[in-house]
């Protein structure tokens, strides 16, 4: 049944998220940016409302919501402020790995509770491993030795645990659970100014640290499948957040251009303005549906779910860049100054796009599979 109608239960949840985003998140967006972290009272409120638990599995005391529900909530929260959403620990990307893993005592007994300090996610196997980092994982007695610096990752300054994806010197895929108490790291003093400043982005540095054997959550083909499935969920959730930001920028632009006068009339009366706003709406709606479809396909475990996830993140990157850029453009000089929110949204959008994959990477991945006719999800394999 083709339907775009949320359930009654989802509608109630969305109303809560909507109110929280507009009444609590949005007013504190600038403060969070200045503090370079989400204000503690806001963190507590979000935690109390359960927004950190959406993706986490029940065995970690999470809500384990379907992705179709999550993407709607994430859109609402990002509408308030993407920077703050990305600074929420429970919404971090590592939660998608936990979702896919069956009950794991290492994780459950760790110092990091589900809604507390959270985990970071360090991806050293996909495109981000090809430049801008120097990580090396080498086998030693009873484990591995880890050296080098990562690319900037979200929540680097906050987390005490990291889910890390590597390939060792033999090319074998590994998914590791690193605890700072066991595998100490430092966060490099960086100089990040662009956007998502409340998300605590930073580079992780390891100096010949030992990674014990028991830190390996998955290896080989199982690890590769786990990474692909987790990335699929991460892409969909991040694309949903981008849809929310795009919607915020669009709505703000509509209101502003309806009021702003030039040549004796609201500038919306000029088709050069209103047609561009219509394009922003079309782009936002197009990606919105792609995200929902990817979420629905993933919930159903469909074969083409990973393809849909790639399509969603590819289009959402374009859409959020397009909409936030034109929001600044249509506000003119006001768009460029910090009295108005759109300049921040454009910066946040660009930082977000840089953190979550580049267009050519997605196109290449999609293209190879499209033309070769390869299945998008090796569903015969299961993650233990």
């Amino acid at each position, binding site marked *: *049944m*083709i*339907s*775009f*109608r*949320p*359930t009654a239960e989802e509608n109630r949840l969305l109303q809560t998220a909507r109110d929280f985003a507009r009444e609590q998140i949005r007013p504190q967006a600038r403060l969070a940016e200045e503090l370079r972290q989400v204000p503690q009272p806001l963190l507590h409120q979000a935690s109390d409302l359960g927004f950190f638990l959406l993706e986490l599995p029940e065995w970690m005391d999470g809500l384990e919501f379907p992705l*179709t529900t999550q993407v709607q909530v994430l859109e609402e929260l990002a509408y308030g402020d993407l920077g703050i959403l990305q600074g929420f620990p429970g919404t971090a990307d590592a939660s998608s790995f936990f979702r896919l893993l069956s009950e794991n005592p290492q994780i459950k007994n760790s110092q990091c509770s589900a809604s507390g300090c959270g985990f970071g996610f360090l991806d050293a196997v996909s495109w981000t491993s090809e430049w801008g980092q120097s990580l090396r994982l080498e086998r030693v007695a009873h484990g591995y030795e880890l050296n080098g610096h990562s690319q900037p990752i979200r929540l680097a300054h906050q987390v005490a645990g990291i889910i890390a994806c590597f390939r060792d010197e033999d090319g074998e895929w590994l998914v590791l659970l690193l605890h700072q108490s066991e595998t100490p790291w430092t966060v490099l003093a960086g100089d990040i100014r662009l956007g998502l400043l409340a998300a605590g982005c930073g580079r992780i540095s390891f100096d010949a640290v030992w990674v014990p054997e028991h830190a390996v959550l998955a290896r080989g083909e199982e690890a590769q499948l786990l990474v692909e499935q987790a990335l699929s969920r991460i892409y969909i959730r991040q694309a949903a957040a981008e849809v929310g930001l795009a919607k915020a920028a669009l709505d703000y632009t*509509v*209101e502003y251009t*309806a009021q702003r006068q030039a040549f004796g009339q*609201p500038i*919306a*009366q000029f*088709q050069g303005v*209103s*047609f561009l*706003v*219509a*394009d922003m*709406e*079309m782009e936002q*709606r*197009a*990606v919105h*549906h*792609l995200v*929902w*479809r990817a*979420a*629905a*396909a993933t919930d*159903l475990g469909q074969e083409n779910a990973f393809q*849909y996830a790639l*399509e969603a993140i*590819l*289009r959402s990157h374009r859409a959020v860049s397009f909409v936030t850029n034109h929001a600044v453009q249509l506000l003119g000089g006001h768009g460029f100054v910090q009295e108005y929110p759109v300049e921040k949204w454009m910066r946040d959008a660009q930082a977000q796009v840089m953190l979550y994959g580049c267009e*050519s990477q997605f*196109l*290449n991945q*999609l*293209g*190879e*599979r*499209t*033309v070769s006719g390869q299945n998008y999800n090796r569903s015969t394999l299961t993650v233990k």
Partner: protein
Amino acid sequence: MISFELTPQQKQVRDLVHWFAESEMRPISLQADAEHRVPDEWLVKVNRMGISLSTPGSQAHTHESKNGGSKTETLEQREQKKQSNRLSVIAAEEVGWGDPAIALTLPGPGLGGPPILASGTAEQKQRFLSIFTPDEPRWGAYGLTEPGAGSDVAGIRTTARKVDGGYLLNGQKIFITNGQRASWVVVFATIHPEMGRAGHRAFVVEKGTPGFSSPRIAQKMGMRASETAELFFEDCFVPDENLLGGEEAYQARQNGLSGFRVAMATFDTTRPVVAAMAVGIARAAYEYTLDFVRREYPKNGKSYTMACAQLANMRQEIDAARLLTWEAAWMGDLSMPNAKEAAVCKAVAGKMALEICAGCLNLMGPIGLDGHLVEKLYRDVKVYDIFEGTSQIQHLIVARRLYEQVGLRI
């Protein structure tokens, strides 16, 4: 619940229409384009098979239109019960994939169906929609556009002067699909140009009515197998009983029903169908070119990598446009206002389909000029960014709806 899964009935319709498109339309596609017509014997054959261009108006006699829409029904019940808009876009994508020009030539009420279904009296629905039977192919048509008024519906100049027992129509219509062969045409005219939209009336003008002629068929860039006619009305007498909805409806609802509203409501129903056909055309070009690249391109090097990426991007664009048409159709099934969504899907699909056909031709290179289907699809698809309201009109509608929410009329 949010879902993009087709029901068994929807899958059945999709598969059946696709089978027809592949086995009956495609084999005559290039020939029909070359001859500027669809063979008569083929039309007789498909009419006997009960195939017609499906628009929501085509379901005039179905269970759902007779029984749908009680006030106590929940949205969930309604969305399961009424599916004609969703079925129409699913079917339209497949016939667009088969051949868009032949699709528009399929017998049936065509775009004339929705206004009769939406605004006609019970007697009019029976009289005009019951003629579509397997014994002989028949067509309906929709006459709105004039030389001086296309997307600006409010600017139509065809007049309808009240006389005893009916109206005298005078004026000209252009770009009317199946206008010459149609058994009847829904024609929009004004009882007084200065009354603006309130003066608009919709009539059903039957073939052979004195004063009604369709002397010329347009020669076109694409869609060559589809008949596009000019209609002339010279003191053409149309009886009262052919005024769509009847005189009483206009008098009883002075601020409600008008020819303008009939035209606009029709667009909200037909634009998703047109958009779905554009999606089908784009998919046809994409699939043809994907096969071409697999067969012809060397499997390494920059050209191959770039072609793969372009094809992947095309698929994403097609998927996005399809979902927008589904949303507009779904809203139509639920009787939700969908003017903005209908305009969005039409604008996005029309633009996307042209870009994809152009991109496919670029991937094929010079050989694409010579006897390949995509070249024809490229010529066909341009009009999908024009008819049923140009892209610019769709932008205007979308913008108006957005600014209405903040209290500004643009």
